[in-house]
């Protein structure tokens, strides 16, 4: 475990007068600072050799309605060199909700700050392009503020409505505007929102000079459905089905992350067998996710047959998930304090049988693709980005590992039982699309290896914690004992009530670091439930990756980023 005391004393030493207080709750180091000193402290955090916080994971805000000052900006940092984490908080008043932008230090802060502006109305001084990111310009109010009612209706906009709608051409920030090579005007092309060669609803506005991309602007938010607002209005356990819909191709991993964050708030750990079952479910999900990514990439590069093989393999992985939790996509498998069901009978044999066929099909898909000259020409050497730049964008997961950075949370900060398992973390050497593809292929095989080990090592015992404050008692006891009946009623109608406090917990999901930041005020509903999703940060560098390349290079790059709409737009 990283030494938080030492970390906090270094920060206090470096910038003593800017720090208001520091604390260390449940292993999360937190520093509260004066908002006007943010930029200065952030520079120290990034550049100091002992701190070296090079990865800005998340920017968000908590609305403490009724308190002064009202808004609390929350930043999460990670150091890829020292493997430690830090949370930075600064309060700004409602009358002047302004704070310095971190874009000059971390380019990845751009979208994160736009989202905070969109949802809370915080203004970032010095931000190059402070527009709404999910919602449309005519939207009234900021939906994640506590005084914004969930049921509020927005006026209709569009042609024919009474509002102030004016159709306007999409604008790109024209920092990179250049004259075309032939002296002609650039051509504006809209890729998406629903394009056959991009999986996921996203619009990319391109300025083309011939076939070369001069400017690109990625527009997201077509799948925004208010995940955080919805979580804040329900009990802790009612958010679990919603986490399924973040990354819908690996739902169990999203469940695991959320439930472990809530357990961290409580300070409990599930029994060993429960941890094994979570790893098994999560890794099968990861297999399904990588299979979809590989298959869809093949399809969008016009290779239809490998796509069918990969999807057949994914279907087999989904059959395993179906046997485990009763649904293929929306698994809703993990519970706070355990899992919804133990492994079914004969699950090990079913796994063995399906994995054998999955490996055959993956080998077939791989055999068709890797030597294929068309596939190679579109993948090799395309969209290379340096590891430093990727980290500045906040990219994690296979995308970062393909650039040669050894950052896999299963290895860096082993959670659950990953420290007892034996697996390889694949790294790329050049960081192009081919490396990204190969990293995913290797990870898929390693996940199969992990599940096989787990099935061999899994101990007998309970899967759930026996704690009536967290987990529903078994039905047999509810029928026969009054206390358990009362517990059942209390837990369903009031929800589990964690002690007041805040935690951040991250797992390695199929696309990178999936973190949940939860603030509890002691009631059964989360005061703030924030999901730091990898797709959001990973999609951001797309514009820079494809700038100066050909139009056709967007498709493999976008595929390898593997943007999942549900996770990116939440």
């Amino acid at each position: 475990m990283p030494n938080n005391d030492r970390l906090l004393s270094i920060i206090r030493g470096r910038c003593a007068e800017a720090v208001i207080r520091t604390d260390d709750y449940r292993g999360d180091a937190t520093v509260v600072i004066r908002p006007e000193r943010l930029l200065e402290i952030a520079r120290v955090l990034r550049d100091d050799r002992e701190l070296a916080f090079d990865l800005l994971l998340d920017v968000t805000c908590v609305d403490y309605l009724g308190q002064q000052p009202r808004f609390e900006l929350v930043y999460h940092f990670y150091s890829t060199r020292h493997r430690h984490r830090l949370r930075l908080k600064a309060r700004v008043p409602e009358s002047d909700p302004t704070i310095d932008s971190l874009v000059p230090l971390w380019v990845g802060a751009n979208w994160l700050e736009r989202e905070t502006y969109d949802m809370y109305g915080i203004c970032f001084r010095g931000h190059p392009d402070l527009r709404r990111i999910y919602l449309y310009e005519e939207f009234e109010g900021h939906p994640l503020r506590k005084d914004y009612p969930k049921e509020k209706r927005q006026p209709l906009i569009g042609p024919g409505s009474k509002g102030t709608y004016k159709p306007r051409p999409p604008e790109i920030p024209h920092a990179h505007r250049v004259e075309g090579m032939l002296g002609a005007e650039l051509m504006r092309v809209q890729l998406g929102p629903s394009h056959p060669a991009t999986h996921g609803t996203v619009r990319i506005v391109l300025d083309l000079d011939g076939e070369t991309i001069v400017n690109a602007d990625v527009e997201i938010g077509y799948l925004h459905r208010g995940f955080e607002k919805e979580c804040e209005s329900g009990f802790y356990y009612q958010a679990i089905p919603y986490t399924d819909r973040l990354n819908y191709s690996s739902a169990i991993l999203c469940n695991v992350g959320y439930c472990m964050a809530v357990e961290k708030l409580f300070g409990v750990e599930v029994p060993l067998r429960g941890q094994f079952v979570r790893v098994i479910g999560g890794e099968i999900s990861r297999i399904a996710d990588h299979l979809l990514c590989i298959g869809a990439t093949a399809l969008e590069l016009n290779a239809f047959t490998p796509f069918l093989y990969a999807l057949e393999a994914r279907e087999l992985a989904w059959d395993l998930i179906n046997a485990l939790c009763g649904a293929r996509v929306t698994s809703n498998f993990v519970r706070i304090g355990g899992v919804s069901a133990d492994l079914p009978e004969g699950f090990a044999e079913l796994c063995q049988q399906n994995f054998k066929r999955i490996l055959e099909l993956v080998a077939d898909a791989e055999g068709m693709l890797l030597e294929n000259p068309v596939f190679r020409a579109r993948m090799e050497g395309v969209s290379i980005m340096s590891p430093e730049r990727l980290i500045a964008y906040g990219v994690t997961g296979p995308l970062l590992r393909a650039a040669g950075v050894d950052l896999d949370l299963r290895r860096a900060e082993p959670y659950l039982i990953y420290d007892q398992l034996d697996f390889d973390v694949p790294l790329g050497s050049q960081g192009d699309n081919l490396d990204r593809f190969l990293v995913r292929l290797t990870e898929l095989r390693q996940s199969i290896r992990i599940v096989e080990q787990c099935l061999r090592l899994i101990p007998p015992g309970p899967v759930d914690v026996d704690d009536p404050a967290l987990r529903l008692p078994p039905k047999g006891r509810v029928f026969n004992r009054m206390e358990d009946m009362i517990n059942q009623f209390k837990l369903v109608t009031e929800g589990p009530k964690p002690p007041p406090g805040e935690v951040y917990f991250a797992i390695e999901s199929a696309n990178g670091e999936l973190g949940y930041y939860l603030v509890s005020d002691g009631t059964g509903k989360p005061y703030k439930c924030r999901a730091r999703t990898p797709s959001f940060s990973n999609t951001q560098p797309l514009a820079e990756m494809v700038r100066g390349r050909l139009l056709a290079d967007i498709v493999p790059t976008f595929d390898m980023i593997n943007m999942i709409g549900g996770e990116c737009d939440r």
Partner: protein
Amino acid sequence: MATRTVTVQRPAPMDAPQGVVRSGAAVLKGMWIASRHFWRNFWGFVRGKPTVFTVQYPEERLQQPPAFRGMPVLVQMENGKERCVACGLCEWACPTDCITIYPAETDDEIERYPRVFDIDMSRCMFCGLCEEACPEEAIVMSHRVEIAAFSRRGTVWHKEDLLVPLRELETTRFPHIRRTYESPAAE
């Protein structure tokens, strides 16, 4: 820690002149793989043991595992009545508020019953939290999934539509419930 890092092996670059030969070989290899799949499926068809992965729904249906979560239904007891006592826990637990219950009382042995029990299937997301919350094992997930309707109103299922005899559930979902929730067999 037993993990280690490995660098992925990139295939050799496709430079000419070997690249041309390898491209040709890749085409042949692709055809070999595809035809192997074809012959496998063809022999499966000839031998009457189809290996084709797709299922011809609705003529053919998959055998679902006991854990399968279809639509939530109400358990109907031997006497034709529901087991539900209208406590309202499922209504509390439902994240999408798709359940509506109006309780009433009778002179029967179980004196409370739901006068109205509606589930709006267009909002239900088959998450199964109602089944978990139910203290009577009266609302359970079934293996039924066909909820299509011609109108919005048709997606609201009333108590009479939701009642499913215990006999049918005993062979589908109940084995999973008994195992997972450690509940005793029905009386």
